[in-house]
């Protein structure tokens, strides 16, 4: 659990670190995050040289490779603006693990400085932008899956639901064992596919049991996992990144 973080006033500019999963599979979520921020009058800087935070290599134990990848990202945020990450998992990597990864190296100070500027998107929208939302969508019940990294590593169990609560027509559906992992876990899903499958099966059942026709999440790994399971079973329940969901219903 992270210690209490003091939030700055709303800045003039922010950086967006889009993450590799969004880049490759869900770019619309990245763009919608940018639009949400821009609507708040914030200029969004998107360094074109960004790639991946390095987490897949990090959690697989390949720390030399992870460090090289992370080092390449550290140089991209030279101005002192906050760095917004539309993923609890990549955000956690950069905020919590970058300082560990560079401890004792000549980039230790830089890593610590960058880590201190990392904000997960929903965290930033709630605590820095104090985002107000005018919901124009139809009335809907929706389930929220907060990723384990957002919930436990970054201590952000409440920010996603808090945003949904500001949507007038949206009812947040309570699910059983909401805090339990969906079974993605990066390479875990590949190394232990059967266990991972059992976990995502339970997660989809819990979401389906709420009667919601849609779920949102702030992490594309979980989205890919849960939505992929629903789709494989031809279930009508659709998943969406929370940035897209909020933008779509308020723009």
């Amino acid at each position, binding site marked *: 659990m992270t210690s209490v973080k003091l939030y700055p006033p709303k800045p003039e500019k922010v950086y967006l670190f889009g993450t590799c999963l969004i880049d490759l599979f869900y770019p619309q979520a990245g763009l919608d995050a940018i639009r949400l921020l821009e609507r708040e009058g914030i200029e969004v800087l998107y360094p074109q040289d960004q790639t991946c935070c390095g987490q897949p290599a990090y959690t*697989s134990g390949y720390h030399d490779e992870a460090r090289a990848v992370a080092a390449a990202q550290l140089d991209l945020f030279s101005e002192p603006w906050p760095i917004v990450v539309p993923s609890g998992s990549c955000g956690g990597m950069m905020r919590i693990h970058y300082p560990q990864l560079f401890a004792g190296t000549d980039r230790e100070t830089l890593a610590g400085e960058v880590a201190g500027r990392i904000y997960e998107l929903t965290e930033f929208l709630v605590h820095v932008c104090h985002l107000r939302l005018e919901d124009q969508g139809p009335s809907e019940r929706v389930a929220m899956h907060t990723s384990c990294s957002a919930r436990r590593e970054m201590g952000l169990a409440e920010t996603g639901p808090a945003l949904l609560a500001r949507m007038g027509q949206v009812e947040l559906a309570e699910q059983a064992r909401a805090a339990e992992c969906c079974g993605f876990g990066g390479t875990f899903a590949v190394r232990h596919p059967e*266990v991972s499958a059992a976990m995502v099966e339970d997660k989809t059942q819990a979401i389906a049991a709420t009667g919601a026709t849609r779920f949102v999440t702030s992490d594309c790994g979980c989205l890919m996992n849960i939505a992929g399971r629903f789709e494989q079973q031809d279930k009508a329940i659709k998943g969406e990144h929370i940035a897209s969901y909020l933008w779509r219903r308020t723009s």
Partner: protein
Amino acid sequence: MSSAHESVQTFTPREFHRQAHDALGNPQIRANFRRAMDGLMAKRRDVFSDWDLETLRELGANIRLRALAKLPDLLERLEANCQANGIQVHWAENGDEACRIIRGICERHEAKAVIKGKSMVSEEMHLNAHLEEAGIEALESDLGEYLVQLNEQTPSHIIMPAIHLNTDEISKILHDRTGTERTRDVDIMTAAARAQLRERFMAADVGISGVNFAVAETGTLCLVENEGNGRMTTAVPPVHIAVTGIEKVVEQLRDVPPLYALLTRSATGQHVTTYFNMISSPRKSGEHDGPQEVHLVLVDSGRSNIYQDDELLDTLRCIRCGACMNHCPVYTRVGGHTYGTTYPGPIGSILMPHMMGLEETKDLPTASSLCGACGEVCPVKIPIPDLLVRLRRESVGEGRGNVPGAGVKRTKTEVAAWKGFQWLATHPAAWRSGMALAGKLQALMPSRLGPWTEYRTAPKPAKVSLHALVKRHQANKADENEETR
């Protein structure tokens, strides 16, 4: 392993995948664990509701860290104080040596029957089998351990050894092995076990127990339990042997209440256990019961190796509450036996590699989604996910090389894959081209991607990457600005 009757099944960490497959396909196992873990999680949540949990965990971690910081001194002090109290202290480098010491004590007393209180360290060293080879019968007296032993199994949970069995299965075991009437009435089964075991307590030559906390300051062995079998084991037979890992020592008596509070609440959601049994000496002259001899066997078994490393050291803070397994989504799905180790679940996955080597246990550190639930509930704040990652590093040969079997999972293919990932992710132009290419080739993407698509559809690369979308978006905005100017 749903039926109590199937032939004895042995589990090994080498077969984690096969064992996980079997467990996942066994509805009885799935239901037993899910129900049990849901119950334990709810009870823990309730019992901590009126506590300043974070402050208490902070204190617990702090006490354990202080004990470890002074470990060699405290072990010497524990030894001196135990000896001054009349407790005989023995040291063992590993499980085999500990077994020989215990067997020696038993043989000196011509012991034929040993009664055991719950001790995971004795499981760790396979003490029962060792004693049986010497013709000494070792009978477990904790009800769960007794049932598991009757069923020729090992514990599937460190606190609740028979948690993988349901009432009906247990009834069958008691019926088949002890002639107890077939019943679903837990009171009848418990009373039957009580009657059977009471005779064995009276007849036992030696009692063997574990230790929850060994207090250096006073030379006191603390045992936490609900059943009373621990008290029986340590007070009825003429000889008591306590066996424990060298890390179980704490500095002072006042360190005990916070750890005890954390242990019972984290383990079973109890405010307190029925018994807290503090033993500081054998029967003194003039006293009328209790053992004439008390022995303490301190076992290393890889612990002093863990102790060398600042990061790995945190592993030794553990007070064996089992909360990490109760909250682990993997353990809940596959159960304790799947791990094939004395300690299953998250704590086992960070501890057993040191005891058995990474070659034997290579699938354990990866058997976690790193969801963090274990670290969140750990009463002494062991950063279990970080330690899992550390052992993954050691497995692939990118750690410090100080864990047995380090580098065992390093393969040319995997190294090449991660080097390739590194190259791509450190060459932005190539990365951008790769993303663009993936979008163009979208239609050619295989719809089956190995294990992933057994259970889920394959994600499709977007036609346009975020890099490209942002460029377009920024260009549009520039145009708009141009127009509105």
